[in-house]
Each structure stands twice: as structure tokens, then as C-alpha cells.
């Protein structure tokens, strides 16, 4: 086989890999199981206003949570704040059922 045929074959194989990878990644934009999860930068607690504010009412201000502020390079990123602890009253027992993760209000 001549060299030019090998070069065309190699280019074609690379193009197939390119197109195939593009097709795969556009159909799988986000992968929760990805090995690397870089810290999110610029979390400022922005509030999106969805309902009209009454005239004259003070505008709500967003306060960023300190635990969510991104760490700069070289700094240790603060961990999220620990969850609230509950104390059961005497006579109340914890259930073995799975905890409720979704509530619905109609």
C-alpha cells in the first residue's frame, strides 16, 4: 500500500474519532460520575427575581454563603457547613425506613 493511502487512512480514522467523540459528548454533556470535579468558581448567591416586586418595597439583596465562596489558588477550600443535628425526645424512635428526600406541596 502506498504512503499516501496510509496517510488518508490515518486522517480518516482520526476524523471518525473526532466526529464520534463530538457526537458522544454532545449527547452526554454532563457526567456526574466524572473523576474530576473542580471547585465551582464565582458562586455569589445571585437571586433571580421571578415575581414582580411591589413598588416602594426594598430590593432583596443576596448574601453569599461563606462556605460556598470559591477558594483561590493555593488556599484550602472551606468544606460545607455540617448539617443540623436533631435530638430525639425520650420515647421517640428513629425509623428504619429510607429518609424522605422529596416533598410535594399542592
Amino acid at each position: 500500500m502506498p504512503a499516501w493511502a496510509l496517510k488518508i487512512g490515518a486522517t480518516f480514522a482520526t476524523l471518525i474519532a473526532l466526529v464520534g467523540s463530538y457526537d458522544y459528548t454532545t449527547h452526554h454533556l454532563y457526567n456526574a460520575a466524572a473523576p474530576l470535579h473542580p471547585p465551582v468558581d464565582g458562586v455569589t448567591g445571585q437571586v433571580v427575581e421571578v415575581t414582580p416586586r411591589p413598588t416602594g418595597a426594598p430590593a432583596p439583596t443576596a448574601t453569599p454563603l461563606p462556605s460556598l465562596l470559591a477558594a483561590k489558588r493555593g488556599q484550602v477550600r472551606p468544606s460545607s457547613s455540617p448539617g443540623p443535628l436533631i435530638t430525639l425526645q425520650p420515647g421517640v424512635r428513629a425509623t428504619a425506613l429510607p429518609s424522605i428526600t422529596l416533598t410535594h406541596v399542592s
Partner: protein
Amino acid sequence: MEAQTFIWVVARVMGLASYAALCISVVSGLALRTSVLDFLAKNRALRALHDFTVWLWIPLGAAHVIALLFDNTARIELIDVFVPFQTDYGQLAIGLGTISLDLLVVILVTSWMRRRMNNTLWQWIHRTSYIAFLVLFLHAYLAGTDFDSPLISSISWSAAGGLALLAVSRLFFGRLAE
């Protein structure tokens, strides 16, 4: 698609495509020293292919790195491209990519300067391409967002396994019998 999402897609696509192009480059290089592709072409044509593959994997690899530099989420800085283990997350996974890039740059530059170099020295430097490919594979395995996909994982592992088999046969048996 948002600009940042597009950059993220470009980084992933270019990473996967450059891996494929590098596999072709390594297999064509191995074919020069083994007779594994003798059924396909003569050594002269294989050498031309090996030299040509540079123009496939360099642009793709460069696009992978440049896209990551512009990706606000990945937070890769220029120093991370050349100095390993400087990132504030995934130090090993990203650092391996940096090491493989550094090795590939050295291999590439010395190949272009081959006629002005001592041949034995050039050969030993060029042999580090096996290490560079191994490190690159580990980088892809540890950092690759798409590496857990059965399709991509099976193709990547198969390619790496085939190349490893060829490299071991080259190491222990030299040029295979005609």
C-alpha cells in the same frame, strides 16, 4: 449551547481525538521495528505515515490544552500546562497530562533536530515516547470525563492493550519473523 459548555465539549472531543491520533502514531512507530504491519505496506511508507501523524495529533492535542485554558470551570492556568502538580484539584490526574505533554514536546523537538544530534542519544530520547504514552493513558483514565463510558473505555483500553502487546513483543523479540 453556551460558550463555556462549547469550550468544555471541545476540550473533551480534542482530548479523545488526539488520543486516537497518538495511537496511530505509536502503532506506526512500532511497525517500523516489528513486522506487524508488513502485510500492509513497506517500511518506507510506514515511516512516511509515522512522520505524517505528527500533523494529526499536534493540532488536536494543542486544541485540547487551549480549550482547557479558556474553560472557567477547569481552571487550568498556563503554568499548569508546563509544570505538573500545580492545580488545586486533581493534582495527580492533571499532572500526568502535563508530564506527558512535556515529554511529547521534548520527543518532537529532538525528532526535528535529529540530524544535528547524536543518533544514540536521539534513540533513547525517542524511546521515552512509550513512557509518554503510558502516562497519557493514565491521565485519560484518571481525569477523562468520558472514560467510564463502556464504548469509549473499551476502545481506549483495547488500543492501549494492543500497543502494550506490540511494545512488549518489540522489547523481548525484536523484529518479528517475516
